[in-house]
């Protein structure tokens, strides 16, 4: 939305504050599954996001090393880089991966913890997630945590000190939208830190619905990256998040 259109002051209504830092968009986007890094950047820019997730993986040794680097296209100077633990199935791997990420990013402590339950569903492994969150928080990380929509375990993660609760809307990459709005509403109601819907958002209306329920943000990747026209879908998501937020505020 063109901010000039907005009544004075409403701008802040579309900001997101996580771990003490404020961003001008409530939309967070991933960088996976794009055609190339240029398309990744174009979609990220079009989305208007301030927070971009990346995954940490082994370098392919020996491969000619002049290949482009993701962080050259979404530089930490321009965006807040949010390293995740995609591919980790236990607490130890997740903690180690984020320690590596912190070193790689010059010590910044914001991270997205996701410990997966199995390769088929990518549903979170909550016991390992709780264990990893505790270790990471002790180690000084600001943990944004991918979790199930279980309000009790979400509360445990908040009480532990996580800086954002990120329940799945539905299975990662499924695009099925918000399967259980009641659980999500329970989490929103009880949570003091930002609640950001993560995974399962399939199209613009799903993002709008999440915001209308009162979420503080939405994180998505596949819905944009796998669209026929990722740039346009990024614009759609940017506007859908604003529309849903305005609808929530206008009640």
């Amino acid at each position: 939305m063109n901010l000039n259109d907005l009544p004075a002051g409403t701008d802040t209504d579309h900001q997101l504050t996580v771990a003490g830092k404020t961003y001008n968009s409530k939309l967070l986007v991933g960088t996976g599954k794009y055609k190339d890094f240029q398309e990744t950047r174009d979609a990220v820019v079009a989305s208007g996001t301030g927070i971009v997730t990346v995954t940490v993986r082994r370098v392919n040794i020996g491969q000619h090393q002049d290949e482009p680097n993701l962080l050259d296209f979404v530089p930490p100077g321009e965006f807040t880089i949010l390293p995740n633990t995609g591919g980790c199935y236990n607490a130890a791997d997740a903690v180690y991966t984020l320690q590596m990420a912190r070193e790689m990013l010059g010590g910044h402590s914001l991270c997205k913890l996701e410990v997966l339950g199995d390769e088929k569903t990518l549903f979170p492994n909550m016991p390992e997630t709780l264990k990893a969150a505790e270790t990471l928080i002790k180690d000084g990380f600001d943990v944004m945590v991918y979790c199930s929509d279980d309000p009790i375990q979400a509360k445990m993660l908040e009480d532990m000190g996580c800086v954002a609760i990120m329940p799945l809307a539905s299975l990662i990459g499924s695009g099925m939208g918000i399967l259980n709005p009641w659980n999500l509403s329970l989490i929103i109601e009880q949570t003091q830190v930002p609640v950001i819907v993560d995974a399962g958002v399939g199209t613009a209306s799903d993002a709008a619905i999440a915001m209308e329920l009162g979420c503080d943000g939405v994180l998505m990747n596949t819905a944009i990256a796998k669209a026929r026209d990722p740039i346009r879908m990024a614009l759609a998501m940017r506007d859908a998040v604003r529309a849903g937020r305005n609808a929530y505020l206008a009640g």
Partner: protein
Amino acid sequence: MNAIQIELNGRPHPADANYTLADLVAKLGLAGKSLAISINREVIKRSDWPQRRLAAADRIEIVHAIGGG
């Protein structure tokens, strides 16, 4: 000179006993890239790369950022 065998990102890799981590990174053409390195799963600060020498059988992991959600 004195050759040793290390494990690099899960594969056996030859190295020189005099190598520092910085040397290894340079040899691999990774100097100046945005990376993190661990030896035997312990993260090694970038500032320590020049001093830190390799030992035989060290399990070295070098990671970078790729696309993810």
